[in-house]
C-alpha cells in the first residue's frame, strides 16, 4: 500500500510538469488540443493525489505503524475521529493535504474555464500546476509521507493531546482551504500579467474564489482563536504568536483585496495595487508555512522544526522576484486613465481602508520577524510581545472602523456637503449618544469610549443603508417590511451580504475591546470546602473526582458557583488530564458563557496529597460577542456567495440564444461562473 502512495505522488508530479508544458505550448501555438490534454492531465493529477490521501488515511485508520508518519502521529487507542484528522496533524500529512486541496481547486478552475478565458486560463492553470510541482517535489524528495520504519513499533506515539480536540479537527482544514484557494486568483493575476490581458477579466473570473478564500481564512482564524480559548487555558484567545500572525496576515491582505477590486471594476483604477495585493496574499500563505515549519522564529507552541524552511524560502523568493519582474515589465500597460477626484469619495475611503489593512499586516509582519532582524543587525534577539501588536494595531483598528462607516454611504467620485449631512447625521448622533451613555455609565478609558462610539456609528450607517433600500423597494412594490428586507438582501446579495459582514465585524470588534480592557483574574490555592470570589461570583471548591482509562488519567474539580445573594448558579468541572502516550498533562477548562461575561475556570494544579488545588479564574466581559460576530461574518459571507437565481436564469436564457452573448453575460455576472 505505501508503495501505491509513493507511485501516485510520482505520477502526479510528472502529470503536473506535463500540464505546464502542454498549457503553455497550446496557448502559444494556438493548439487547443494541447490545452485540452493539459486540462486532462490536471484532472489525472488530482486523481493521483487523491489516491495518495486515501492510502494515508487507510494506513492511519488501520494503525499501520510500519509507516513512519502513522507511528509518529497516531496510536491504537486514539479515537477514530482523530485518526482521521491525524492526516493534518504532522508535517508530511499536512503537506499532502495541502497538495490535495490545491489539486482539487486546480481541477475545478480547469473545469470552470474549459470554455471561458481561452487567453489567460492556460497560463493560469500552468501557474497552478507550477505551485503544485513545488509541493509534489517536496513530497517526492524531501519530506515523504510514505516512508517506512525499519522496525515496526507495537504502538504509535499518538497525536499531540492539544490537537485532540474538535476545534483542532476543523481549524487546520479551514485555514488550509483559505490559504490554498487564494492560489487561484493569484494564478489568474499572474496569467493576466504574463499575457498582457490586463482588463478586469482575471478579477471577475476569480471573484468567487477570492471570497471563498476569505470565508475560510475567517473561519480558520476564528476556529483557531476559539481553540486557543477553550484548550490552552490562559483565559485569552489571541496571543500574537508567530503562528497566529501567519494566519492573520493573509486574511488582512485578502480583505484589502476584496475591497480594492471593487474600485477597479467600477473605475478602472488601482490595477497595479490589486495585482500586488493578490501576489502579497499568496506570498503570505507561503511565508506562513515557512515560519511555522522552519523554526526560524520561535513560537511558544512551535511545530516540528524541519529542513523544509530553506525550500519554502527559496520558493517564496523565486515567486516574489518573478511576480515583481512581471509587474515592472507590464507597468506601462497598467496605467489607469481615471484618477481620484476628491477625498470625499468612496474611492478615497476604500484607498485609505486599504492602506490601513496593509499597514496592520505590515506591523504584524514586522513584529513577527523583528527577532530575526534584530539578531542579524544588532546581534541580540529582541522580541516584541502582545503589547507591541496591541499598541500599533489598536489605533489602526479605530481608523479602520471609522472608514467602515464612511465607505458604504459616501458617493463614488465626489460627495456634496448636503449629501454628507443627509447620510451621516443619524449615524453620528447614534455614535455620540453611545459615547455619552458609556461615559455616564462610568467608562473612562478614551480608547474604549472611542471604540464603542465608532462601533455604534458604523452600525448606524448600516441601518441607514438597510432602511434606504427597504424604502426604495416599498416605494416600487407594496410589501410588508419583513418581506421587503428579505427581498432586498436576496436581490442584492453581494451588497447586503457585505453589510451583514460589516455588522459581524463590528460586533466582534466590540467583543475584542470589551474582553481586552475589562478582564479580571484571580489565582488561588484552596482546600476542599474553601471558597473565594471573583466579580459578583463566589466559587466554592467542593472536591476532586479522579478517573483512569487506558488513554488518560484525569482529575476533575467540582466548583460550585454562587451568585452575590448566595444562590447556586451552576457547578463547573475544570479538569486536569494526564495523557499516557505521550506522557503529557493537559488542562480542561470550564467555561460558563453569557452575553455579559464569561466565567472561565482553570484547574491549574493539584498538590500531590490531593488536598490543595490551585485555580486560575478569569472573568471576561463581552467575549461572547467575538464569537457571535464571527458567526455573523460567516452568515454574511454565505449570503454574498449564494448563487443569484436571477443572474443564472439570465445566463441560461442567453445561452439558448447564442453562445457569444452567454459568454459576455456570464463574464458580466458576479462571480461569473
Amino acid at each position, binding site marked *: 500500500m505505501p508503495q501505491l502512495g509513493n507511485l501516485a505522488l510520482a505520477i502526479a508530479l510528472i502529470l503536473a510538469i506535463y500540464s505546464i508544458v502542454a498549457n503553455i505550448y497550446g496557448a502559444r501555438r494556438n493548439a487547443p488540443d494541447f490545452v485540452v490534454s493539459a486540462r486532462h492531465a490536471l484532472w489525472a493529477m488530482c486523481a493521483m493525489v487523491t489516491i495518495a490521501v486515501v492510502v494515508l488515511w487507510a494506513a492511519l485508520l488501520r494503525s499501520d505503524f510500519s509507516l513512519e508518519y502513522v507511528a509518529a502521529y497516531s496510536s491504537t487507542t486514539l479515537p477514530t475521529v482523530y485518526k482521521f484528522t491525524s492526516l493534518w496533524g504532522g508535517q508530511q500529512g499536512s503537506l499532502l493535504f495541502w497538495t490535495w486541496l490545491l489539486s482539487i481547486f486546480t481541477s475545478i478552475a480547469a473545469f470552470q474555464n474549459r470554455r471561458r478565458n481561452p487567453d489567460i486560463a492556460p497560463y493560469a492553470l500552468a501557474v497552478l500546476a507550477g505551485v503544485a510541482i513545488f509541493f509534489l517535489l517536496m513530497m517526492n524528495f524531501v519530506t515523504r509521507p510514505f516512508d517506512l520504519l525499519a522496525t515496526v513499533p507495537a504502538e504509535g506515539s499518538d497525536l499531540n493531546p492539544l490537537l485532540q480536540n474538535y476545534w483542532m479537527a476543523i481549524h487546520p482544514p479551514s485555514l488550509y482551504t483559505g490559504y490554498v484557494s487564494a492560489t487561484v486568483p493569484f494564478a489568474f493575476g499572474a496569467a493576466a500579467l504574463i499575457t498582457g490581458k490586463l482588463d478586469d477579466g482575471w478579477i471577475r473570473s476569480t471573484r468567487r474564489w477570492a471570497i471563498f478564500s476569505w470565508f475560510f481564512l475567517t473561519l480558520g482564524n476564528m476556529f483557531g482563536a476559539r481553540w486557543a480559548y477553550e484548550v490552552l487555558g490562559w483565559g485569552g484567545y489571541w496571543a500574537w504568536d508567530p503562528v497566529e500572525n501567519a494566519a492573520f496576515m493573509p486574511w488582512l491582505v485578502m480583505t484589502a483585496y476584496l475591497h480594492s477590486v471593487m474600485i477597479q471594476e467600477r473605475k478602472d483604477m488601482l490595477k497595479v495595487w490589486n495585482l500586488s495585493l493578490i501576489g502579497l496574499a499568496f506570498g503570505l500563505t507561503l511565508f506562513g508555512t515557512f515560519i511555522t515549519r522552519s523554526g526560524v522564529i520561535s513560537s*511558544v507552541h*512551535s511545530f516540528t522544526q524541519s529542513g523544509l524552511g530553506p525550500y519554502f524560502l527559496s520558493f517564496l523568493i523565486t515567486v516574489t522576484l518573478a511576480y515583481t519582474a512581471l509587474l515592472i515589465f507590464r507597468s506601462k500597460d497598467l496605467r489607469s486613465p481615471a484618477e481620484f477626484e476628491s*477625498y470625499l469619495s468612496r474611492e478615497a475611503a476604500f484607498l485609505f481602508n486599504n492602506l490601513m489593512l496593509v*499597514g496592520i499586516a505590515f506591523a504584524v509582519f514586522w513584529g513577527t520577524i523583528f527577532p530575526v532582524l534584530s539578531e542579524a543587525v544588532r546581534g541580540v534577539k529582541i*522580541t516584541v510581545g502582545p503589547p*507591541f501588536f496591541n499598541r*500599533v494595531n489598536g489605533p489602526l483598528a479605530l481608523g479602520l472602523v471609522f472608514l467602515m462607516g464612511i465607505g458604504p454611504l459616501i458617493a463614488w467620485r465626489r460627495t456634496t456637503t448636503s449629501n454628507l449631512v443627509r447620510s451621516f447625521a443619524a449615524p453620528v448622533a447614534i455614535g455620540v449618544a453611545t459615547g455619552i451613555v458609556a461615559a455616564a455609565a462610568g467608562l473612562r478609558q478614551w480608547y474604549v469610549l472611542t471604540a464603542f462610539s465608532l462601533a455604534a456609528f458604523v452600525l448606524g450607517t448600516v441601518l441607514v443603508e438597510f432602511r434606504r433600500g427597504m424604502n426604495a423597494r416599498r416605494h416600487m412594490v407594496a410589501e410588508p417590511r419583513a418581506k421587503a428586507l428579505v427581498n432586498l438582501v436576496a436581490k442584492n446579495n453581494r451588497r447586503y451580504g457585505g453589510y451583514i459582514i460589516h455588522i459581524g465585524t463590528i460586533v466582534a470588534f466590540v467583543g475584542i475591546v470589551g474582553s481586552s480592557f475589562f478582564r479580571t483574574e484571580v489565582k488561588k490555592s484552596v482546600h476542599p470546602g474553601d471558597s473565594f470570589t471573583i466579580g459578583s461570583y463566589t466559587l466554592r471548591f467542593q472536591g476532586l473526582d479522579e478517573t483512569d482509562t487506558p488513554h488518560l488519567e484525569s482529575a476533575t474539580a467540582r466548583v460550585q458557583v454562587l451568585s452575590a445573594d448566595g444562590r447556586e448558579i451552576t457547578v463547573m468541572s475544570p479538569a486536569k488530564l494526564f495523557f499516557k502516550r505521550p506522557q503529557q498533562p*493537559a488542562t480542561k477548562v470550564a467555561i460558563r458563557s453569557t452575553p455579559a461575561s464569561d466565567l472561565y475556570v482553570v484547574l491549574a494544579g493539584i498538590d500531590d496529597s490531593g488536598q*490543595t488545588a490551585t485555580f486560575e479564574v478569569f472573568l471576561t466581559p463581552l467575549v461572547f460577542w467575538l464569537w457571535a460576530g464571527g458567526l455573523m461574518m460567516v452568515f454574511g459571507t454565505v449570503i454574498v456567495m449564494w448563487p443569484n437565481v436571477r443572474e443564472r436564469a439570465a445566463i441560461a436564457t442567453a445561452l439558448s440564444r447564442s453562445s457569444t452573448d452567454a459568454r459576455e453575460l456570464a463574464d458580466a455576472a458576479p462571480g461569473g461562473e
Partner: protein
Amino acid sequence: MRIRPRFFIGGCLIVLAIGYLIFSSIRSTSEYYLTVPEVAARRSELGGQAIRVAGRVKPGNIAWDPNSLTLKFEIVPIPDVDAAAVRPVVASDPVSFRVICVGEPKPDMFAPGRDVIVEGKLGPDGAIAATQVMTSCPSKYKPKQSQ
C-alpha cells in the same frame, strides 16, 4: 495611474503615521531574548530591562509553595549537543540564575531538566524576578525505543 498630489500627501501621511506607530512601539515594548550565558555576559546592561531567558530547569533546589503561588528554581544553560562533543564543558562554576516567580500557577509541564522560557527582569541581587514561566513543549515525540 496618476494620483493627484494631495492624495499622494494623504497616503504618505497615513504611511508615516503607521511607521511612527511601529517605530515608537518597538522601542517601548521590546524584550531581550537571551540564553542563560548571554544573560551572564550582559549582566551589567540588563538592569530594569525586560528579558526573556531560554534555559533549562536545574534539578534540585526547586521550591513550589501552592499557597502563595511561589515558584523558585535555578536556570542553567541548555547544553549544546554538538558543541559538547567538540570541546569538553568546563566543570567549574557553570552559569546559573535563581528564578523567583510569584503569583502564577506552576506550569503543567514544569519539571527538572525541562527547557523553559522565563519572562521577567534581572534584579540587583542577580536573581530573575519572573512574571511568567513557560515550558516549551516538544510537539514531536520520539517513539519509545523499548517498545
